[in-house]
């Protein structure tokens, strides 16, 4: 690249010298300009000659050679050389920009692990991640990249997941944590049991996805290549007519004047500026999005995302955390009225609530039901099995157990009815767990899913990004769905849907759409694959663990945050805006210059600007697509 720059500078210097000597010394001028031309353009001319032999006519090199040689023949030396010079500058700049953006995307995606540490004969050796098998034990030291997906066997550490998720906050891992390849181990040494081979590991799947993303071309890219296919030959043919016909048909028209005008056409006919600017924008947009933890499967999806007006969300795991937590402990009236003057009333209530939770957690100790797990988690202290005797799990109802010599019943209303215990009935979203102590109703514990922290702001951001309507589909009951929809300000919520109903409901919604606007479905990807596939754009969230999600989705968001959807839409819109700005800029400037030069109003210089100037501007504009850090 340095060499090319020097060539251009030398040629430009000679060109300037020739221009200074000027008209007074015809021969010196001619020699200097010719020298400058040869230095600037010999490779273009030889390439053009070679391509003609191969039957390749409308090639850029050929067009430039004809335009410049033509200018020379009619005595316009300074302009002839300048066209070649500027053309070379444009090419150099274009190569530089393309290389640069290739490099910056390679850097963004620099997550490929080089080696894995494995034990062989009690010695730690480095091997290719490819050679490690499922079940092998690997050691990851501080500063190293996690080479394969696995589970931590030993050690604590912080992992930098930013290369995968764009998330700056490190993730804490300890024994039992699942870790994803591609992260960087920040401090401790961890021993990891490999759970996926390299080919199946997160890192290779991401690389695969990103590498293939730019292969699916966007409509704007297809438009511009198709345009170029007709544009160049058309302009060249007009140029030929322009050079020949007017001098023959119009009196007083000179050949050199009309040839000069047609040369402008040849210069402007080069399609490369147009063709490069669109893929360059999309490449930047896709790369920038990957850096934010948003993987798109192609430029066409970026385009569809920009045109999305309706978003359908799955509830559990997408808008809510999908983890059940104790939300509320409600004491029965008899329990809460047992007053004791030595305590503050609130403290006493809290104590009784704790006791109730403690009894419930102990009674549920032997159960593995998600509800009992969340009870035990809320209790948070160690459970002493000696306190429990005589446990019985009543399927579909709950648990009966004796704790501290008291008979405890923990379960749903069916259990209460079975034992003839009157209980509180309340319309709440979530699951109610009733508790009776010695056949006396003691109160209930409400267990529910939690809305994600950024869910509310994401819906607001989506509205700002131009989303007209938001929908929610869930298998949950009306109360739970209504509560989430109201809290988040969703436009429509549909409850009690089985997985198959979701597809049907989605199709219903899609039928009401105007044909141009797009609908996106967002799910966590575990049981949403059919819906993800059916929507115009399927967005899988936090879906890296699920193969089906990556298969079915068009966009994969690596973190759990719904706010990334708004980010993705903003990136898509910006990218598309840039691509169309470039298309419009090129088409408008080129058309204007063609018309003006046909009438002899503008000189070759304008044509040079229409070609090289527009290329440079379009490329500079495209590079903006890569910058999405603040979106």
């Amino acid at each position, binding site marked *: 690249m340095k060499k090319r720059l020097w060539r251009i500078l030398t040629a430009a210097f000679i060109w300037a010298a020739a221009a200074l000597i000027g008209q007074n010394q015809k021969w010196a001028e001619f020699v200097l300009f010719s020298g400058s031309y040869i230095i600037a353009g010999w490779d273009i001319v030889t*390439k053009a000659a070679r391509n003609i032999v191969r039957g390749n006519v409308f090639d850029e090199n050929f067009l430039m050679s004809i335009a410049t040689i033509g200018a020379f023949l009619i005595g316009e030396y300074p302009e002839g050389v300048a066209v070649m010079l500027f053309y070379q500058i444009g090419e150099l700049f274009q190569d530089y920009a393309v290389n640069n953006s290739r490099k910056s995307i390679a850097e963004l995606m620099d997550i490929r692990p080089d080696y894995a540490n494995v034990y062989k004969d009690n010695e730690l050796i480095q091997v290719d991640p490819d050679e490690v098998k499922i079940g092998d034990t690997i050691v990851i030291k501080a500063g190293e990249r996690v080479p394969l997906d696995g589970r931590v066997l030993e050690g604590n550490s912080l992992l930098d997941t930013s290369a995968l998720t764009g998330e700056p906050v490190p993730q804490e891992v300890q024994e039992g944590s699942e870790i994803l390849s591609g992260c960087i181990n920040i401090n401790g040494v961890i021993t990891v049991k490999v759970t996926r081979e390299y080919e199946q590991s997160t890192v290779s799947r991401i690389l695969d996805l990103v590498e293939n993303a*730019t292969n699916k071309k966007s409509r704007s890219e297809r438009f511009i*290549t198709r345009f*170029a*296919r007709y544009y160049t030959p058309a302009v060249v043919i007009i140029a030929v007519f322009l050079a020949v016909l007017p001098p023959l048909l119009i009196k007083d028209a000179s050949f050199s004047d009309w040839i000069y005008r047609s040369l402008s056409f040849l210069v402007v006919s080069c399609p490369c500026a147009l063709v490069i600017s669109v893929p360059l924008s999309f490449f930047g947009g896709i790369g920038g999005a990957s850096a934010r933890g948003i993987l798109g499967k192609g430029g066409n999806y970026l385009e569809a995302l920009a045109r999305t007006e309706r978003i359908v969300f799955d509830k559990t795991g997408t808008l809510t955390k999908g983890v059940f937590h104790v939300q509320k402990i409600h004491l029965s009236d008899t329990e809460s009225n047992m007053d004791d003057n030595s305590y503050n009333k609130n403290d006493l209530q809290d104590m009784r609530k704790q006791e109730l939770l403690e009894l419930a957690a102990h009674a549920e100790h032997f159960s593995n039901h998600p509800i009992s797990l969340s009870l035990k988690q809320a209790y948070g202290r160690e459970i002493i099995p000696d306190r429990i005797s005589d446990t019985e799990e009543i399927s579909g109802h709950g648990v009966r157990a004796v704790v501290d010599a008291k008979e405890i019943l923990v379960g749903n209303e069916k259990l209460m009815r079975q034992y003839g215990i009157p209980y509180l009935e309340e319309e709440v979203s979530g699951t109610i767990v009733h508790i009776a102590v010695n056949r006396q109703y003691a109160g209930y514990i409400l267990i529910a899913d939690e809305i994600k922290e950024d869910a509310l702001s994401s819906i607001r951001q989506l509205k700002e990004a131009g989303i007209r309507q938001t929908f929610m589909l869930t298998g949950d009951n009306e109360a739970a769905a209504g509560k989430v929809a109201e809290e988040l300000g969703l436009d429509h919520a549909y409850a009690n849907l089985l997985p198959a109903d979701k597809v049907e409901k989605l199709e219903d919604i899609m039928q009401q759409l105007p044909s141009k606007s797009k609908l996106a479905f967002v799910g966590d990807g575990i049981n949403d694959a059919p819906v993800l596939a059916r929507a115009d754009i399927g967005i899988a969230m936090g879906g890296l663990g699920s193969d089906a999600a990556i298969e079915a989705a068009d966009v994969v968001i690596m973190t759990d945050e719904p706010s990334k959807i708004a980010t993705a839409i903003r990136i898509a819109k910006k990218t598309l805006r840039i691509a169309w700005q470039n298309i419009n800029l090129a088409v408008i400037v080129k058309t204007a210059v063609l018309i003006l030069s046909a009438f002899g109003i503008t000189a070759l210089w304008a044509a040079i600007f229409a070609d090289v100037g527009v290329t440079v501007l379009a490329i500079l504009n495209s590079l903006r697509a890569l910058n999405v850090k603040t979106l």
Partner: protein
Amino acid sequence: MKKKFILKGLGCANCAARMETAICKLDGVREATVNFMTARLIIEEEEGQMPFIVQEAERIIKKIEPDAVMKKA
């Protein structure tokens, strides 16, 4: 079958687009993509004609851009 190639020295976006169009028209090609930014060529063929297609694709690439070399990815 799907095959991937690297086009070393691919220097012009319009040439890439022309290569893509020409290769797509070859017999037995289901889909062909030339990605200028990643300098990749991906050919998806019907069946069993890959050697012929690869040979033809190489000829097309040489014709459109003599400096580009097609290498197996």
